[in-house]
């Protein structure tokens, strides 16, 4: 994991003091509401339905056990004993008092954490594959570059007041688990024919009101040019992105208006002046950052020890959990464990202070003191020996962390919705719960297999409903909460935007619509065909007919 040096520490402390003074001036009436808003947002502080909401950055989802314990302390001391993991791999606290936020930030700074640029019209937390560095299918560990981007984007003097928010994602594996095609910039670590490492640069993807899959503007960017090229893209966006209408201000609108080819050419023109400039990365610079992401002291282990294989046969519940909630690891004898935060009846992504402490202890006891946050809003223990899995599972079960539904229909990616968020048109949490209750039969759920279900409470699409195989969007109809269902969306290598199947549903009818959709899938699927594959093969029409058929 990256470790702060004296300068990193100093800059974060200075940001805390700057914000403390901004808060003081706001409370003293020296800064107006309108003037304070962009300043507080750039420090992750929203004013929400019930109280302020503070979003704390977890850079590319990496977390140490010490940091997680600090988050649990903050949840207990300044909040109501829990936090909410977000789709940007961050954590949100829903109940802090405005006056105490500077103190929270000071506490975070002690463990090398902050809330810098977790909101506002600036470059946000860079995200990546939650399994970076441990995934079996990874060809390059992109984390050194994530940290390089994090530092470049942090307090960037030129790009603090962009037209709109700006999100960057990095993927280093064959299977894109970072949703890079729906980001303002998506970077794929690739190798060219000469064996040189570089990035494929995708620009202008995004969800929200205008969902678009990003366009590749450069097939191969040598890694040393990463920052000068990012400067060029951001400068073109900063100068020419629309500022007159916030719904047309994302880079995707600029790319679409200019055409991807013209946008790429404009970036190349700008870059021609910046290329090989002072921000060009030398080998020793990359090596410096890569040195923080070396392998921990893995043991030489044999695969399938008895402590693992015996309970796998004797305990069906354990076997189910292993099948869904653990992933193959690049080192033999290890697996990565996904601690599910999708227990029925609990808002998706919510984690209690007790769970944080427990997970921190397991990270120390069974792993190397590190954890990850997945953009699917689950917590991950990246390095667990197969021989320890049975014990980890039992502990996880005791703490409500072991719902064996990772990647299944009830592993719903969900925004906080109308219960908490002042932007939302509709509540998401009770509807997610109703779906989870409808599909509470584990055998049936397993039989349905891999299904990404995403839920957003409004057009801002924080729950990424457009890329759910099945997506739900909360809409407002004359002051009532209604829900639109989309099918056919997907993330990863075959990113696609889902299509609306028809008129929206009242809250009580959503689970039934889901049931009809799943019944049709089970009837229509070919052997081994996943839900999304059936949707792609047979199209939306049969689903529409089934869902909207008049009942007899």
């Amino acid at each position, binding site marked *: 994991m990256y470790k702060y040096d004296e300068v990193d520490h100093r800059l974060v402390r200075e940001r805390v003091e700057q914000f403390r003074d901004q808060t003081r001036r706001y409370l003293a009436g020296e800064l107006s509401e309108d003037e304070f808003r962009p300043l507080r947002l750039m420090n992750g502080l929203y004013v929400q339905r019930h109280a302020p909401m503070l979003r704390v950055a977890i850079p590319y989802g990496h977390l140490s056990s010490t940091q997680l314990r600090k988050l649990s302390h903050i949840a207990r001391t300044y909040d109501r004993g829990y936090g909410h993991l977000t789709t940007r791999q961050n954590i949100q606290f829903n109940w802090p008092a405005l006056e105490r936020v500077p103190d929270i930030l000071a506490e975070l700074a002690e463990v090398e954490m902050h809330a810098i640029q977790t909101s506002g019209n600036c470059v946000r937390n860079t995200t990546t594959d939650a399994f970076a560095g441990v995934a079996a299918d990874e060809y390059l560990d992109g984390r050194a570059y994530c940290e390089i981007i994090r530092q*470049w984007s942090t307090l960037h003097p*030129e790009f603090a007041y962009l037209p709109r928010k700006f999100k960057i994602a990095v993927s280093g594996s064959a299977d894109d688990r970072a949703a890079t095609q729906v980001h303002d910039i998506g970077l794929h670590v690739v190798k060219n024919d000469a064996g040189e490492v570089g990035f494929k640069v995708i620009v202008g993807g995004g969800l929200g009101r205008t969902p678009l899959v990003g366009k590749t503007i450069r097939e191969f960017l040598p890694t040393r040019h990463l920052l000068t090229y990012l400067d060029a893209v951001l400068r073109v966006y*900063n100068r020419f992105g629309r*500022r007159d209408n916030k719904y047309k201000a994302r880079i995707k609108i600029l790319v679409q208006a200019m055409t991807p080819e013209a946008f790429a050419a404009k970036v190349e023109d700008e870059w021609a002046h910046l290329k090989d400039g002072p921000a060009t990365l030398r080998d020793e610079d990359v090596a410096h950052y890569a040195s923080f992401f070396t392998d921990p002291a893995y043991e030489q282990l044999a695969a399938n020890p008895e402590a693992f294989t015996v309970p796998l046969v004797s305990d069906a519940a354990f076997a189910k959990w292993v099948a869904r909630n653990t992933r193959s690891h690049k080192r033999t004898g290890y697996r990565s464990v996904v601690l599910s935060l999708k227990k029925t009846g609990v808002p998706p992504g919510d984690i209690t202070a007790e769970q944080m402490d427990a997970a921190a202890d397991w990270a120390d006891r069974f792993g190397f003191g590190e954890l990850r946050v997945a953009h699917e809003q689950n917590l991950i223990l990246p390095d667990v020996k197969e021989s320890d899995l049975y014990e980890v599972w039992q502990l996880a079960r005791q703490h409500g962390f072991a719902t064996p539904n990772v990647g299944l229909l009830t592993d719903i990616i969900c925004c906080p919705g109308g219960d908490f968020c002042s932007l939302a048109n509709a509540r998401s949490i009770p509807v997610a719960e109703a779906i989870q209750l409808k599909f509470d039969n584990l055998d049936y759920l397993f039989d349905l297999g891999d299904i990404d279900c995403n839920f957003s409470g409004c057009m801002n699409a924080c729950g990424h409903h457009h890329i759910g195989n099945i997506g739900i969007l909360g809409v407002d109809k004359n002051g009532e909460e209604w829900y639109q269902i989309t099918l056919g969306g997907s993330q990863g290598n075959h990113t696609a935007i889902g299509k609306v199947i028809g008129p929206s549903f009242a809250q009580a009818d959503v689970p039934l619509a889901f049931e009809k959709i799943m019944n049709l899938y089970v009837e229509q699927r070919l052997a081994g065909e996943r839900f999304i594959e059936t949707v792609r093969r047979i199209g939306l029409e049969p689903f529409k007919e089934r869902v909207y058929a008049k009942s007899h």
Partner: protein
Amino acid sequence: MQNLIKNDAVTEDAWRLIRSEDESYDAAEDVILPLAAWLALDPAARSGQTAVWLAPDADLTVLWPALAQLPLIAIDFPAFTDGRGYSLARLLRERYGYQGELRAIGDVQRDQLAYLARVGFTVFAIRDDRPAEAALDGLRDFSDQYQATVLQPEPLFKRRTQR
């Protein structure tokens, strides 16, 4: 009162900002003109110094031939949340090699000064209703930066590995 910060101190100078093309001024006055007025100007008609101010969407290429003669360029911030002026400043300094005074005008407040200084602004015309004295502290918010910009052309990552 100009409410100006220059060389780390609150000060005043002789420059008069001409916001609109219709605004009249004397031949002997030191004036900062809108771009269109400046482009149309007959230099022979002036005895005072002449500078130009730019809107955030200004095309810098029209300035390029005259840059070396300009004693001052001002960049306007219609709102402090409009970040285009930061890019213009870097372009003037880094690409066009502009050496003269670069003045931030418009909605310029304390909380933007640290970044404005880093991209090459040297003078800050603080919004009239805010005390420039108090805004001075904004220049001291940060003691370092990660990026390569005008004030610190060596990015932190290079200074780190050179140690």
